[in-house]
């Protein structure tokens, strides 16, 4: 367990993770984008507010939408696509970029994503796409902030998608703590997949 709580940015669904880390959740906007992204000004306003937020040495980002049943895109209309995939993408992009800006020199950021298990990804294409996008965002941001020695990692879990949430909080908190506490200044863009067997 980390001794000083990190700052946690995320959706209300990630509150148990913040609680497990002993932190207060800084919520991302509860916006749902339509195909025109007419609600994007809400994200823009939140991002502006983040520019004056208190800097932190360790930040955790967890944008977790409500879990739905596996859905093929064949049965998905554009409204639902935008509400689920595009909203998650936009919130992740804004939240991760803001977290990295808030992170002090030499600090760390951990993105906690939800990724379906590889062989069970049928019907989870939106979640797979967001998870892959977040890993790439992390790698880009690690390059952007490398000169400030900011390190950025990923912890991913399939627990909620598989309905196996028994040890979710402990598993994720443990993985995040391991990354944040490690005395390993040369390690960045590490990706840790947390098992979801319980």
């Amino acid at each position, binding site marked *: 367990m980390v001794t000083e709580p990190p700052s946690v940015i995320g959706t209300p669904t990630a509150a148990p993770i913040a609680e497990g880390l002993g932190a207060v959740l800084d919520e991302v906007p509860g916006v749902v984008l339509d195909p025109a992204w007419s609600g994007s000004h809400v994200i823009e306003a939140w991002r502006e507010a983040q520019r004056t937020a208190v800097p932190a040495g360790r930040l955790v980002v967890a944008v977790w939408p409500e879990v739905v049943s596996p859905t093929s895109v064949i049965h998905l209309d554009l409204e639902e696509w935008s509400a689920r995939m595009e909203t998650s993408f*936009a919130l992740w992009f804004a939240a991760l970029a803001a977290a990295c800006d808030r992170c002090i020199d030499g600090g760390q950021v951990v993105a906690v994503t939800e990724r379906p298990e*590889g062989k069970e990804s049928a019907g989870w294409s939106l979640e797979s*796409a967001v998870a892959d*996008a977040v890993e790439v965002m992390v790698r880009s941001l690690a390059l952007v902030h490398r000169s400030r020695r900011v390190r950025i990692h990923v912890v991913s879990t399939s627990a909620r998608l598989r309905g196996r949430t028994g040890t979710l909080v402990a598993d994720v908190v443990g993985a995040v703590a391991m990354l944040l506490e490690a005395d390993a200044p040369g390690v960045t863009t590490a990706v840790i997949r947390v098992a979801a067997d319980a």
Partner: protein
Amino acid sequence: MTASGAGGVVLVTGASGGVGRGIAIACGAAGWSVWVAARRQVEGRRVADEVTSAGGRGTFVECDVAEADSVAAAVAAVVEGEGRLTGAVHNATSGRSPEPVVPSDVPLDHLRDHVVVSVRGAYLLAHHAYPHLVASRGSLVLLTSEAGFGGTMRLAPYAAVKGAVRGLARSWAREWGGDGVRVNCVAPLAESPAVTVAMAADPTMAERVLGHHPMGRLGHPVDDVGPVVRFLLSDEAGYVTGMTVMVDGGNAPIT
């Protein structure tokens, strides 16, 4: 050459130039019917003519990949004109792809443009092409990028959407394999207008991209990239699905 045993009938988005043009012409060289889907009519019709000159049958169809009705109409036009669709390729990317950005400063409307062209465009094409690809036991190819693996310092939105596309392809491959539909990605490193713009905007890019390149050159859209996409669209790749094929001259440190 295709899953149907006859000549291929393929739709290629973003085919009015660059890599999309290369794919269209390479498919035309195999005698296929290629529908050049793009917003730019003049350039699109020119590529359609090039497809025909290469030995295929080129047809331009106006298409905005971010608009559901436009994609639906483009797919419907192919099926109405040809009676079938054996392959679909999503190559279109945002015109903002080569713009260097600071991630926390990217205007949301710019981010939206990246997302709706690359990711929503893939969804819309898949959504509307799927029943026709099932009927032909066909193939879907999505264009990604080396940036979609490793990220980039200056093109974070572009890299992120290219990563998202890979996630879509892997899931769809598992979802649709039982229906006989294959889904793959291709990650090219090739000459294109976007690369030219990006290199002009960032003088260090050429050295970063080619400084350690095993072959010391960018790929050619028609000769290097097009044939690989054509292979994935053909029944010769009938047991290949869920993959990202790097067509980058060995540049990406990924095996």
